[in-house]
């Protein structure tokens, strides 16, 4: 098994290296074959590992010692348990689908090989992250996925918006990493180790700083998982090609923060303040970002804000100590959000890279397969039984309802209201893009995408429907075992759960959202504009994403530049160089000027100075 653990991350890495360095030699077909093979091997191995883990064979061991600092050894190693095994399946499966889909999506792109190299490199990094058995390797993976995300957002590097977005994404993530690294530093300072299990064992030693540690670690998660107010980079990341929006900015990378907090659940259970902070952050993100999704017209941006909102749900679940529910929603979301993104991508290809939904409409007739898979993703996302999203979201809402920490009431209101919002924006997308009269140029009708695009859609749609049925084991059962802190809960079976859910408010809120979307975008299509007008300033505020982009660019970017200029011109050039360095040069110059007066070579000056000297000396002698 140990060899298999190694193969899982290394196979995609090998693919990435071959496609990246020898892309020109092996050609397009070579590049996609070798990377897909790598990820396929990784996926199949992950299944074996998963089955093995279900049979009770977990693993925790080091591969090699990365460094010894003083007497502290830090290693690279794997912890294979039920948590990491689940993540490995999700990551490799979605990655495999995205690899295949890319063949169709990027067919015309000159950077074809480079793209495959990047997404395979991403898969490697993400696997290293989830398989880590210590904080250092977690941070390695954490930063590596950030790097690949940076490279992929800026994939079309000649576009100014793309290279702006990738820099922004990297820097905002770095702000999160700043907190994360400080958190890791505190863990090391208090326990003297970075190994998860040893840290958990020594957790009582951290008691006095545990709230600070948990919040700092969570700041890292806020960056990576785009939680309010570090969410600003994710919408802009849509500048990247759609396959990576699905893989990185929806299904896997952005969930790294959720995974990390779940992994650290023994620590978070020690601090109620930290959990309260997590819960409120998640709830605010869920509702505020969901509202923005209602105002967007770019099809990818709608899905992007939906992702932000769903990540908010997962975070809220973490804050409510429902780690298993967060992980469960992470999994179902990975499937249905990948479907939504890839279907949106399929629409974008068909529309010749038009992303504005105001120029779509009636696409259902032209692209039936895309429509039906997207619809499955939408229903799942809205939380209608028996699709996956219903179960996972319901579990979260239930958990938030029962959370005892400060702010739970507010959070419950947010997540509940967000159910309505989610259903509304999701079906707004469906109705605007796929129903009604076509608003595109009829001389270039769109047509259904090729098989390499639609087959992954169908394969991802299946778990979007079915993966929720697993809730009994994952959320309420013993699936996670000791890999997470679990809350015992009653469980009366899937039927009872569904029946109970259908009678509860979230379900009816979701139905209400869909009906509202139908009414506004199918029946009274004149209303949305009027509503926007009526809520003028408020609508503008939401549409501008609450003005955070402007605020940050003025305050932080502008402020840093101003400070830098001040230090440079004022400090370095004026004070240090001008006053001290060149000042002392001038002082020397002045002094030598004075001294040189005495050596002017003019006899009369020497003579007069001599005379003055004689007079003074005589006076001095006479006085004594």
């Amino acid at each position: 098994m140990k060899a298999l653990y190694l193969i899982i991350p290394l196979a995609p890495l090998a693919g990435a290296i071959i496609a990246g360095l020898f892309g020109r030699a092996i050609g397009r077909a070579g590049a996609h074959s070798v990377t897909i093979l790598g990820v396929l091997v990784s996926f199949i191995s992950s299944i074996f590992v998963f089955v093995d883990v279900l049979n009770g064979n977990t693993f925790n061991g080091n591969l090699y010692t990365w460094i010894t600092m003083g007497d502290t050894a830090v290693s690279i190693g794997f912890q294979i348990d039920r948590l990491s095994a689940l993540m490995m399946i999700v990551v490799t499966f979605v990655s495999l689908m995205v690899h295949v889909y890319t063949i169709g999506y990027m067919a015309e792109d000159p950077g074809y090989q480079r793209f495959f190299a990047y997404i395979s490199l991403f898969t490697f990094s993400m696997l290293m992250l989830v398989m880590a058995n210590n904080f250092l390797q977690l941070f390695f993976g954490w930063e590596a996925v950030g790097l690949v995300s940076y490279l992929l957002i800026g994939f079309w590097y000649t576009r100014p918006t793309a290279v702006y977005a990738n820099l922004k994404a990297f820097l905002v993530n770095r702000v999160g990493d700043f907190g994360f690294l400080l958190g890791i530093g505190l863990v090391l300072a208090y326990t003297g180790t970075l190994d998860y299990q040893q840290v958990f064992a020594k957790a009582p030693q951290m008691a006095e700083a545990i709230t600070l540690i948990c919040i700092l670690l969570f700041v890292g998660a806020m960056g990576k998982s785009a939680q309010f107010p570090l969410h600003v980079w994710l919408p802009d990341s849509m500048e990247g090609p759609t396959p990576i929006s699905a893989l990185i900015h929806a299904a896997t990378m952005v969930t790294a923060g959720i995974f990390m907090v779940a992994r650290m659940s023994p620590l978070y259970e020690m601090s109620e303040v930290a959990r309260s902070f997590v819960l409120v952050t998640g709830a605010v993100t869920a509702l505020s970002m969901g509202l923005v999704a209602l105002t967007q017209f770019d099809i990818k941006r709608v899905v992007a804000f939906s992702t932000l909102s769903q990540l908010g749900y997962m975070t809220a679940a973490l804050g409510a100590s429902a780690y298993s529910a967060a992980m469960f929603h992470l999994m179902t979301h990975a499937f249905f959000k990948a479907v939504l993104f890839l279907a949106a991508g399929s629409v974008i290809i068909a529309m010749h890279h038009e992303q504005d939904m105001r120029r779509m409409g009636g696409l259902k007739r032209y692209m039936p397969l895309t429509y039906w898979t997207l619809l499955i993703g939408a229903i799942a996302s809205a939380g209608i039984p028996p699709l996956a999203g219903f179960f996972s979201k319901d579990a979260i809402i239930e958990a938030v309802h029962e959370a005892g920490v400060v702010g739970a009431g507010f959070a419950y209101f947010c997540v509940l209201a967000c159910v309505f919002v989610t259903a509304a924006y999701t079906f707004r997308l469906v109705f605007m893009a796929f129903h009604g009269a076509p608003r595109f140029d009829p001389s270039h009708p769109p047509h259904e995408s090729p098989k390499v695009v639609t087959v992954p859609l169908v394969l991802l749609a299946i778990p979007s429907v079915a993966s929720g049925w697993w809730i009994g084991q994952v959320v309420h059962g013993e699936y996670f075992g000791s890999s997470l802190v679990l809350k015992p809960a009653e469980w009366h079976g899937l039927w009872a759960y569904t029946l109970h859910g259908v009678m509860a408010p979230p379900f009816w809120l979701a139905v209400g959202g869909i009906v509202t979307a139908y009414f506004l975008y199918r029946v009274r299509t004149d209303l949305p504009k009027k509503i926007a007008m009526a809520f003028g300033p408020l609508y503008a505020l939401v549409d501008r994403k609450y003005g955070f982009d402007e605020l940050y660019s003025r305050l932080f970017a502008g402020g840093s530049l101003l400070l830098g200029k001040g230090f440079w011109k004022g400090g370095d050039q004026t004070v240090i160089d001008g006053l001290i360095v060149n000042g002392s040069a001038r002082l020397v110059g002045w002094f030598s000027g004075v001294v040189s007066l005495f050596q002017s070579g003019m006899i009369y000056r020497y003579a007069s100075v001599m005379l003055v000297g004689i007079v003074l000396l005589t006076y001095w002698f006479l006085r004594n």
Partner: protein
Amino acid sequence: MLLSLAIWVPIAFGVLVLLSRNESLQRSLALGGAVFGFLVTIPLWTGFDLANPGMQFVQNIPWIARFNINYHVGVDGISMLFLLLNSFITILVVIAGWSVIEQRVGQYYASFLILSGLLNGVFAALDAVLFYVFFEATLIPMFIIIGLWGGPNRVYAAVKFFLYTLFGSLLMLIALLYLYSKSGGSFAILDWHKLPLTLGAQKWLFFGFLLAFAVKVPMWPVHTWLPDAHTEAPTGGSVVLAAILLKLGAYGLIRFSLPILPDASKFFAPMMIGLSLIAVVYIGLVALVQTDMKRLIAYSSISHMGFVTLGFFIFNAYGIEGALVQMISHGFISAAMFLCVGVMYDRMHTRMISDYGGVVNTMPKFAALMMLFAMANCGLPATSGFVGEFMVIMGAMKANFWIAFAAATTLVFGAAYTLWMYKRVIFGAVANEHVAALQDLNPRELFVLGVLAVAVLFMGIYPLPFTEVMHGAVNELMRHVAVPKT
């Protein structure tokens, strides 16, 4: 014997280069000398005894017996790696200048080879006078390199560099003479380590040494010579300056100030930490607004060297080892960054960021390599840039949360100035016809940058071999520093 070879082989080859008249012979001799010079340092690492925390490969011959001055050389886990780094960088500098330098080729190469030998001398010297001679002698070739092959404003930069550093080291000479008389007539640095000194005397001596070393590091506020020197120096000069010459100051601090003046070092630690953090934050912000690439990287160097001085003065193993790792890593990364700018400068003859844009379109291989080095400069894990910063931040956290907090801001600032520059220079559409006409890396350039890329990645993925040699000497130093001398 090995150490003497490491010192004198490059110098001997430098003299040979000067004596020969034929340009191609000069180049070949220079390359041969650099490679041979590197080869003789390898046994220092492979033959290094990890269990021995003291000096190894020691050689001690009387030099000026009347004053008890000896040719006394040796290395421990702190200094050994710098000889390798220096000799390694020398090879790259020789190759990098291969077809770029067309005037006074022999003198150019001779300067670098002699400089290389002198630098090895500084790191190996165990006698204070020998150290001082080597330390000061390095100024001369560097002064010549900047003054002869530099940019338009080279004379101002060279004189500023020379006076600044010379002024700094004068007080050190007085400190050395004081220690000589105090120790009853010994210049042996290791004897001085054991010399009892009152706190008052230590404080004065500390400032004597500090000025010399702080200028070299350079620490804020005596750093302003560096951006000028870097911008005007030829590429090779910048490389050696950043990769090795700056390390002399830091090396001096850990070889003289910390062990000889442990109590004063602790007394002044808050000040040193403060100055280091100013270097990290203030200089990081200054780097952000630079318009000249070399000046930007120069400021980035100062900011990164702030981690070195910070690591020394938090007095724990993480910090000191982290600082040493940072010194090695900075040697690779700053060398690579200056070489990258050199590659572009050779083609475009401008260092201004605004003259570039969209270089990736015409130089994809170069863009990929520079991306790696830029990421290393931001301290991305799996590159060498991460290791030292990580260790120092972890060490700072042990000392005080807020020190770590201020130091860790480099995660944001470092990324901001490096990647913003990268974005403006490399990304985007082709900015002008000069960029459109660019040729990608030639095999020689590819080799130099490729070798550095391997070094940066290797040290990032597997830094153990680098830290493992340090433990003995660093533990010894920590034990030594822990005992008050007064």
